[in-house]
């Protein structure tokens, strides 16, 4: 499949199955659109405004790329992925819901102020240890194991976090495993002790902040209704500085109420953060903050604005990473990873404070998705099997989508929430993902231009 688009003065041509990305002139852009369904003569007739000799030149260049397997290649991965998905899977990543409680009351929270449709609860050390044992026992020969301390707000149960990290480290050598711990926090309880500990032990920290103070405070109030921006901003700045090259993200959510979210991203960059993620909210259709179809043109404009600004800042030596525009054209994931889905329900499970296992953090609280618990292991193989079957080839909408190699078929939880099935897509999310991929590739083209200058 060949996908072509124009963005910011660049004519982009993607050969989707090979992963090749080409930047072409106007003539080539038009010829690519006709190649394969028209002969050279027909193309010359169709594009009579161009010089026939030039068209032939372009035609030959395309033919050469086709013969090299870099243009007009076919999708030959379906059998490979179907076979790949049949392999026995192991569990390699856990999202530990260390606290089902929160000191904020964010309006868009899918966890309903940390409680996930249930009661407030903290994970005990015993349950946490058993979760790590479960992970080690079920991880087969995988060496890298990932554990995210999530909530609610995990720092409300920080003592258990510390003890679990120590316990995890004690298992590493004996079992030939390497734990990668990560922490997602709203920052309210962040102090020097936590920062020092996290810098020592956490491979990545995700710091929740939405951007401009007024935007953040509106959606992320404390339990008594006051904004939380002033409580966290200085701590996050200090923490980001202390990371000193280690991975971190300031991560925000944008909603229908701040469609001009590029300003929030740039606000965070101007505050000195250089690893930034700001994502569209996913919520029930009836909520006013949810992104609506009618919001899309504005959001697309914002992504374009942001992409141009990122290029400008990069050229000035003031660049920053925007998570959703990150694409590694040469060292990215393999085809198996790209096409087989995010791993929810198979490689990746979420653990509730009392040890129940769910396909991912977003399914927690939906009883029919509980697949077992850390003491008895996975008992609902039927549910796991449904998740195992999902891939870009099981979703009709993905087959014709150029972005399937980047999003891997999208989020099962989003599909479940909006379509009632894990095997569907979420149209608004898909349109945004396609736009982000387009911007990300254009940025690569622009920066390649710069390095040639």
């Amino acid at each position, binding site marked *: 499949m060949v996908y072509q688009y124009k963005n910011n003065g660049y004519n982009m041509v993607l050969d989707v199955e090979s992963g090749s990305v080409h*930047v072409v002139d106007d003539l080539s852009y038009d010829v690519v659109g006709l190649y394969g369904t028209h002969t050279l003569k027909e193309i010359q007739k169709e594009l009579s405004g161009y010089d026939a000799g030039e068209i032939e030149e372009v035609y030959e260049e395309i033919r050469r790329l086709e013969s090299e397997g870099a243009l007009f290649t076919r999708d030959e991965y379906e059998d490979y992925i179907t076979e790949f998905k049949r392999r026995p899977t192991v569990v390699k990543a856990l999202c530990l819901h260390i606290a089902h409680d929160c000191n904020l009351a964010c309006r868009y929270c899918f966890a309903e102020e940390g409680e996930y449709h249930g009661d407030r609860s903290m994970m005990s050390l015993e349950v946490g240890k058993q979760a790590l044992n479960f992970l080690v026992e079920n991880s087969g020969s995988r060496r*890298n194991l990932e554990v995210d301390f999530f909530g609610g707000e995990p720092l409300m149960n920080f003592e258990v976090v510390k003890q679990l990290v120590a316990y995890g480290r004690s298992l590493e050598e004996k079992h030939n495993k390497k734990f990668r711990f990560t922490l997602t926090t709203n920052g309210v309880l962040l102090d020097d002790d936590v920062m020092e500990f996290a810098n020592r032990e956490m491979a990545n920290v995700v710091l929740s902040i939405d951007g401009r103070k007024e935007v953040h405070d509106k959606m992320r109030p404390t339990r008594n209704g006051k904004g939380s921006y002033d409580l966290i901003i200085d701590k996050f700045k200090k923490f980001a500085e202390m990371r000193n090259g280690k991975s971190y993200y300031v991560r925000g959510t944008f909603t229908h109420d701040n469609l001009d979210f590029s300003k929030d991203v740039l606000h965070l960059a101007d505050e000195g953060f250089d690893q930034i993620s700001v994502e569209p909210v996913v919520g029930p259709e009836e909520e006013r903050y949810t992104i609506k179809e009618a919001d899309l043109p504005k959001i697309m404009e914002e992504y374009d604005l942001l992409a141009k600004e990122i290029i400008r800042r990069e050229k000035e030596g003031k660049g920053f990473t925007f998570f959703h525009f990150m694409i590694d054209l040469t060292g990215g994931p393999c085809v198996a990873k790209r096409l087989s889905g995010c791993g929810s329900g198979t490689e990746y499970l979420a653990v509730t404070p009392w040890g129940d296992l769910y396909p991912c953090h977003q399914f927690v609280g939906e009883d029919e998705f509980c697949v077992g618990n850390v003491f008895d292991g996975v008992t609902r193989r039927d549910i796991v099997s449904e998740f195992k079957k999902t891939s870009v080839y099981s979703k009709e909408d993905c087959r014709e989508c150029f972005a399937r190699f980047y999003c891997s078929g999208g989020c099962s939880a989003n599909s479940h929430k909006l379509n009632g099935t894990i095997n569907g897509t979420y149209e608004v999310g898909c349109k945004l993902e396609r736009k982000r991929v387009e911007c990300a590739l254009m940025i690569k083209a622009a920066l390649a231009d710069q390095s040639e200058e």
Partner: protein
Amino acid sequence: MKHIKTLTNKTLQNTVKKGGCGECQTSCQSACKTSCTVGNQSCEHSK
């Protein structure tokens, strides 16, 4: 080539033979918890 500049060339097909080890990061363990961002993870082999 005069008209077409290639930014990256058929990197995906090369990964069929050696790919699928599963050691790389799960996407929801990075900065996202609400959208699927598999394409921007990095390969453990290329580190």
